[in-house]
């Protein structure tokens, strides 16, 4: 990084010394500055993730100082990760939606509906009679279907994402309450419980799911046509359309993806709590959007980062854990969360300004 900045300075110095009437020099300087700019951007996103890592380490240090061994234990680390994994899976999906120029406020409600639908008496009976995997199918299908409804309304109905998903937020939770008759549903299918509460070499299965989803999300985002089109659709929908991308279809797919992630997260939460409930995932949308935004994804679309989102999720999960270990109530946590979001966004804007003026 330091080498690059020296390089850039060198270019600038040469530029001022040489009379700029010499076209050849100017072109070379311009080419160099181009390379410098590219490097600067790369170091920008790298630097941003580095900043998040530093923030995470600071929170960990605070945890060690205030809670000592209660914080720095394997058990506690797994608790943090287990907690992070549910939010994390949804956040990966949300990163795609936000980068694609949208927003989904209904993730918490969709999660609740999935959890309830997958644990109704009928579903569990069927699952008990045949195979617990029925519950998995139900949750994923319900989540994807909700996403499909959101996506179709937004892409083809031209209802703005904020309103569409706000309506879904109300409707999906209401439906969850109707189905469950506002009662918490206990999971009785042992196969399901056994499968999700298992661990591999001491790592809980839930954490493994989060890890797999993160890696798959990273590949999908950075290495596939789907990811590239998401950037194009979010960055300039009109240009994407005129370049021949089916913007409407892509938008639908983005919301189906986040809906699917909600279904998966619902299964994880159901197994963690061994219940399905219409109150699951209340205010999840706030935690998820906050994690995505502090990770460095632009709310206006066109730029996003999966690694940043994962770090954002871990920061909030760890922070919550440190507060809990210090017997601070959730209200204090909420205030701290608010402050962190604002600070992160302010820093981000600074970085963005530097990047564009280069």
């Amino acid at each position, binding site marked *: 990084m330091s080498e690059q900045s020296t390089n850039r300075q060198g270019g*600038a110095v040469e530029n001022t010394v040489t009379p700029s009437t010499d076209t050849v020099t100017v072109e070379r300087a311009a080419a160099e500055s181009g390379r410098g700019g590219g490097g600067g951007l790369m170091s920008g996103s790298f630097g941003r993730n580095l900043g998040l890592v530093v923030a995470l380490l600071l929170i960990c240090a605070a945890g060690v100082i205030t809670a000592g061994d209660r914080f720095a234990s394997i058990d506690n680390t797994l608790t943090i990760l287990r907690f992070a994994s549910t939010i994390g899976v949804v956040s990966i999906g949300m990163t795609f939606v936000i980068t694609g120029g949208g927003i989904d406020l209904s993730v918490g409600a969709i999660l609740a509906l999935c959890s309830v639908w997958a644990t109704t008496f009928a579903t569990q009976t069927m699952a008990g009679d045949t195979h617990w995997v029925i519950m998995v199918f139900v949750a994923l299908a319900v989540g994807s279907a909700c996403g499909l409804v959101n996506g179709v309304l937004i892409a083809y109905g031209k209802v703005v994402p904020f309103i569409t998903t706000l309506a879904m937020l109300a409707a999906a939770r209401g439906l969850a309450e109707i189905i469950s008759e506002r009662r918490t549903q206990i999971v009785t299918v042992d196969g399901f419980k056994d499968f999700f509460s298992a661990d591999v070499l001491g790592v809980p299965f839930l954490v493994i799911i989060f890890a797999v989803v993160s890696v798959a999300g990273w590949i999908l985002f950075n290495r596939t046509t789907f990811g590239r089109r998401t950037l194009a659709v979010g960055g300039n929908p009109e240009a994407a359309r005129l370049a021949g991308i089916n913007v409407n279809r892509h938008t639908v797919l983005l919301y189906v993806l986040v809906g699917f992630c909600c279904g998966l997260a619902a299964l994880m939460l159901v197994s963690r709590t061994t219940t399905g409930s219409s109150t699951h995932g209340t205010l999840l949308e706030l935690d998820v959007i906050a994690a995505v935004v502090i990770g460095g994804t632009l709310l206006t679309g066109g730029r996003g980062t999966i690694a940043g989102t994962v770090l954002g999720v871990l920061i909030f999960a760890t922070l919550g854990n440190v507060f809990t270990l210090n017997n601070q109530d959730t209200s204090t946590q909420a205030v701290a969360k608010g402050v962190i979001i604002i600070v992160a966004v302010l820093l981000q804007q600074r970085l963005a300004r530097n990047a564009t003026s280069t």
Partner: protein
Amino acid sequence: MNDAPLLTMRGIVKRFPGVLALGGVELEVRAGEVHCLLGQNGAGKSTLIKVLSASYQPDEGQILWEGEPVALSTPQTAMDLGISTIYQELDLVPDLSVAENIFLGHELSTAGFSQRGETLRRTRDLLARLGHSEIPATRSVGRLSPAAQQIVSMARALSQDTRLLILDEPSAVLDQGEVNNLFRVIRDLTTEGVAVVYISHRLEEIRQIGDRITVLKDGSTVATGLAVDQTPTSELIKLMTGRSIEYVFPPRGEVVEPTGDPVLEVTGLELAGVFTGVDLSVRAGEIVGLAGLVGAGRSEILETLYGARRPSAGTVRVAGRELRRGSVPAAVKAGVGLAPEERKSQGLLLDQAIYANITVSTLGRFSRFGLLDSRAERKRSAEVAESLDVRPAGVDRLVRLLSGGNQQKVVLARWLLRGCRVLLLDEPTRGVDVGARAEIYALVRSLADSGVAVVVVSSEVEEVLGLADRVLVVREGRVVHEGPAGEIDESRVLDLVMEGKVA
């Protein structure tokens, strides 16, 4: 006090990280003159304007206002001196009314209550002074035509006590009649002692309106204070480009014999309320030009046959097969490509790398099971970019950082890489400097020679006549003339274009 020029800029230097945007600019503007600022894209004109309007602070240099040094530290100080800028991209609030926009920031009010009547009266006065009293003062600006919006911007500048008016390519969105009106307004202003800094690519306009010229190149002043009537055009081009070039069009191909089936065939195309009954057929290797005024429906015709708008009647066939109505993917699949009019907002992903912009329509080719082969992408797009001489070289640069001409080349590279049968070009050289224009013309011709059917839309009649084999003249949504480009001249086209207006 009146002896000193209104504005003097000396040795203005502005650096951005890694780039020297201005490397010592000299400019002197006298009260009551129209001072033209010439230069290719990337020469530093925009940066200079931003220094003048105090959006940017210069790193070195001195600015004198009536002989006194001033520091233009905030946009407000520039406004207080009487410097108003009308930018190329208009900065109006679309949902506010004409009157509200004009007095935005300096609303007329008594004790905090806005003076509605007075505001409307003054707005009507200003519009009348600009010769556009037909613009309703209460209509929201978003519903006005681009030309009318520009008049509103001018009215806004005049609503303050303007002594120096900066116009950044004002004629880009105007047709000939509106340009004439603009010139009339400018002359009125200068007789009142207002100084105007006029920026345009069009040399013939500068001849009409300008008094003196300053030429910028690569961020420096190469000539300043040239008298317009004593400087030949060739001299100006030489100063701007550093080499002597003519406004050259490539030679047409072999005489187009009407052989072979048309690649693009449009019959009875209609977009209700915009254009109707458009028939068009283009053979491989042929360039067809559409001439007409802004608002005649030229761009809409292109967008409709590209599938970006759904026609109310008519069919589009490519190589004999009818395209699905209103579907861009269908058109692209059939081998149609469009370089849209608004390059930045419709054509490019400004914050993405050059290579991503080039491959965006061919992603399928670089992926296996959805996984992108980024190296192949870079390699292929670098080859295409190099063949088009996109500068600076290297495809990892953000498109935002390129000049207009190079951005246009990136759009063309996209379709070149895809290999299209039909290429639709909407204002292919808008915002492109003289040097890059010739390159783009040559490129379009060589594409045609390789068998592509090309349709070009342009506001510049000279461009349509010079580039196309066959010309269609569009007036008020109808094709009023069709014939070989060699059999019609500029004045005849203008007659055809204007006829409806006279009647």
